[in-house]
């Protein structure tokens, strides 16, 4: 569905991603993991068509992303930035309705379909009960859920979410991940950046571990989160277990001077 083909991104002379390949299929949740500074956000922005690529190409259903018209791309692809916020004190509902902008014709009031999509997104993210409150009055975690609802309101076929569960309580983390699974089940392709390895292992079909400007490991979560990989990329030793058929990965201690790893 969405594929990165030999993509290289430079900031000035510094290479951030080098000849990276990644393919996202319809109906799957791909977890993008990796240490701080590995280039997860850069890759996600490149996949959203927000960055110029020095080499390589992003393709959406075979079509090169940079040749697509922004508006038609926006109807298909939603991007949820990391730590996003609202600059004005819009009400929750108005903010979530912004997610419908690519679908609305100019000057027209929201249609029945727009209203329904917003109502559903509000309910799914458990923010419907403060629909008429200004976003600025909500707590950080509540605001994160509202922004998630904004991205879902567009009913995207591809969702690129940058740390959507950071700062959420365990209950709402499970809610959001379950919603992503549900969206994937309806045929969407999803890339989600995350740091919680257990959550990643439990809810993602595949993981892509970004390290050293490339995808260092890719595939089923248990394979990617092997003791060897965690030591090499994160510089940690972890407990591997399982409960109710799901994997558990809990980092226990540094294996070495792991600080060097992020820049390796």
């Amino acid at each position: 569905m969405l594929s990165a083909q030999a993509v290289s991104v430079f900031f000035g002379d510094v290479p951030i991603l080098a000849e990276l390949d990644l393919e996202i299929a319809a109906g799957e949740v791909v977890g993008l993991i990796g240490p701080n500074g590995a280039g997860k956000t850069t890759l996600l922005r490149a996949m959203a068509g927000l960055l110029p690529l020095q080499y390589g190409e992003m393709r959406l259903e075979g079509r090169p992303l940079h040749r697509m018209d922004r508006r038609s791309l926006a109807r298909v692809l939603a991007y949820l930035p990391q730590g996003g916020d609202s600059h004005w004190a819009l009400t929750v509902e108005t903010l979530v309705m912004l997610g419908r902008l690519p679908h609305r014709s100019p000057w027209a009031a929201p249609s029945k379909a727009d209203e329904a999509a917003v109502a559903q997104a509000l309910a799914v993210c458990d923010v419907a009960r403060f629909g008429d409150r200004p976003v600025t009055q909500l707590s950080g975690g509540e605001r994160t859920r509202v922004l998630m609802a904004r991205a879902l309101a567009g009913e995207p076929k591809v969702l690129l979410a940058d740390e959507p569960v950071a700062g959420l309580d365990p209950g709402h983390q499970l809610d959001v991940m379950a919603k992503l699974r549900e969206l994937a089940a309806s045929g969407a392709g999803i890339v989600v950046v995350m740091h919680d390895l257990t959550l990643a292992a439990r809810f993602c079909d595949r993981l892509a571990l970004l390290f050293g400007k490339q995808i260092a490991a890719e595939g089923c979560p248990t394979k990617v989160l092997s003791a060897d990989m965690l030591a090499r990329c994160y510089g940690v030793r972890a407990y591997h277990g399982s409960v109710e058929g799901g994997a558990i990965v809990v980092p226990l201690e540094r294996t070495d001077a792991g600080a060097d790893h992020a820049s390796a």
Partner: protein
Amino acid sequence: MTAAPALRRRRREAAPFLLPLLALAVGGAFAASLLIGPAAIGLREVLDALWAGEVETTALIVREVRLPRALLGLLIGATLGLSGAALQGFLRNPLAEPGLIGVSASASFGAVLTFYTGLAGLFALALPLGGMAGACVGVVIVQALAGRDGNPLTLILAGIAVTSFAAALAALVLNLAPNPFAALEIMFWLMGSLADRSFEHVWLSAPFMVAGWLLLITLGRPLDALTLGEDAARTLGFNLRGLRSRLVLGTALCVGAATSVAGAIGFVGLVVPHLLRPLVGHRPSALLPASALGGAALVLLADVAVRLLSPGRELKLGVLTALVGAPFFLLLVVRLRRELS
């Protein structure tokens, strides 16, 4: 969860009937501007003058003095309110105002130059034409300096650079003025006023202002999207580079034309959007029309006030808006601080 309660809730967030009420205020202020002045002219006579085509002195005063003045007040007020709201939305900063992108300062400098060279004395429209030429040069420089990437920060920096350079040049011209009277004349003009403007000024500036409005009023949706930040706005399908170009061109057209015929009238473009924002539920798109109407009403009322406050030696409109605007803005700051704490 049905759509019906959602609809009801959204209506509640904006003050009901805001636009009709504002339009009513503009109408009232416009009428007051026609009725109030040094010459006592009643409602009856004003209406006669406007529609019956009388040729007496009173009719001439209404048609040739008060009507163009009121029309300019309406046009300029709407310009300042609309462009202020658009700029605040784009920069996502409630402190932005129409003068920020350097157009007002360069228009002022262009006008000042026509005083200095004596062109202003040769024919009446030299002054506004000079102002427009200044605005054009200013906006070209700002666009070139700001680069092509649609970034708000580079726009602010380019605007500040052009504003300070134009102000320095205007100061230089004042410095070199041949005599104190010439300098005083320039100073007075810079203060901003609607007094003694004719229909020539209206015809000259109105097309540019309306063209600028048409560009700015279409920016509502991209400005709404920018509430979520630049990356989110772009992935919602908006081209930020095009947005900024339209914003700068629209502001340059209407603010450049407004400054060219009336000088710099401060604080309207800053205070009006600020005041009306809570009443439209903080939505940048809804703020555009509301702020245009609010600006028109405020400038018309302020222009009536200068006539009432100091008949004879009239207070300059720009001086009054700054005198009232600055303390008012302080009040807003204090209130905002209290809300934040």
